[in-house]
């Protein structure tokens, strides 16, 4: 109970911070999308020389789109979470103040006229706490998803490296350049996602 209170007191700040951090991820995801377009153009130009690279560029486009969508989802969810945790904090405060009044008025002739409202405050708090847990779960799920996307990106960069190595000399450098940029973007996204996770778990 105590650690829960402490959590929610910082939580609305952390959740808002997460939303801010994610704007960086969005930029990176847009970089992936841009590189995917470059790769597509290259593949089209090179034709059969880099045929095996085609599915990889398709995957990059998909990855970029998914990531952008996920980041927007996470961002929205993080803001909802920030608002929910603040509401939870308020409802918990109200609940405690009504409870204290009830205790103090235990001998008052009309003390029992507080009971309904105190029960309502307790109920509201309970519901807010449940909402908070639900939104928290949802946000962690989304972070899981983005992290697993980035793991997939790692697999793809490894394959693309091999493919780039076997491509015709004139395309090798460009393809490697694309792979490196993809890898960098994926790693930064992974890093930020796990940072967000840590700040939410605090």
């Amino acid at each position: 109970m105590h650690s829960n209170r402490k959590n929610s007191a910082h939580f609305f700040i952390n959740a808002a911070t997460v939303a801010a951090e994610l704007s960086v991820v969005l930029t990176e995801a847009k970089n992936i999308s841009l590189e995917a377009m470059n790769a597509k153009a290259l593949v089209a130009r090179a034709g059969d020389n880099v045929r095996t690279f085609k599915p990889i560029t398709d995957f990059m486009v998909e990855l970029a789109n998914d990531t952008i969508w996920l980041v927007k989802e996470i961002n929205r969810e993080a803001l909802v979470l920030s608002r929910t945790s603040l509401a939870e904090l308020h409802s918990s405060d109200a609940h405690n103040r009504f409870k204290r009044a009830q205790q103090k008025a235990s001998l008052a002739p009309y003390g029992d006229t507080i009971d309904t409202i105190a029960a309502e405050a307790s109920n509201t708090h309970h519901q807010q706490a449940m909402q908070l847990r639900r939104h928290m779960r949802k946000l962690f799920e989304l972070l899981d998803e983005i992290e697993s996307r980035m793991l997939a990106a790692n697999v793809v960069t490894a394959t693309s490296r091999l493919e780039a190595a076997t491509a015709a000399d004139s395309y090798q450098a460009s393809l490697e350049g694309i792979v490196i940029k993809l890898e960098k973007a994926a790693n930064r996204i992974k890093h930020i996602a796990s940072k967000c996770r840590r700040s939410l778990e605090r």
Partner: protein
Amino acid sequence: MMKVVKLHESRSHEWLVFGRDEERPSKIIDTNQYMIKTTNHAIMLDPGGIELFSAMLAAVVHHVPINQITHLFASHQDPDIISSLGLWDKTLPHAELYAPWLWEGFLRHFGCNSIRYNPLPDEGKSIRLDEVELQFIPAHYMHSSGNFSVYDPQAKILMSGDIGAALLPDNAPLFVEDFDAHVDKMRLFHQRWMPSNRAKKDWVRRVRQLEIEYLAPQHGAIFKGRDVQRFLDWLDELEVGTGVSAR
């Protein structure tokens, strides 16, 4: 526990003062809250800050059931007056709040979703609770720019909000006992919190026309009988607005 004193009792109504809460956190200013209880209604005048809410609610139900409290009044917008509004809003969703029109958009920041806000016009207004008439007397710039006192002509009580306030040690008596000694406890408050000599003169002029047995401020001690006139004379002479040095 919060202390409660009955200021007036008649067939039609009662005046109660709540204050001197022993459990009040030491860094918040001590306040007096008032409640007028009529046959079927009750109004709380300057119900207090959020830190006091639990103690106030507990004290109030010693005297009335919650659903009898149908009205609230806030003399002005200060946190010590009404930052508890958000919680009263949950407690008394059907109540009405009388407060200066000037502060409506501001007071709503405390949370006023269910309670109805009745904006008081600058010139003041009278209301009736059962057989009791209450007059909201303009007290603008004393100290707040939108501000009212409450006058009960039957009980001859003027609830004066921050006017007449004194900064007293904990557990000081609830009534002024030695006026001359009391002056030292309220001089700074009036000089520094009250901004306008013109507004002060205007309020004193209005209030001199009323018959007052008790002048009841939101901080400090209540003036009784002859001390009411002494206070008005003292305030009339006092130079206020001293935060701006005369260079």
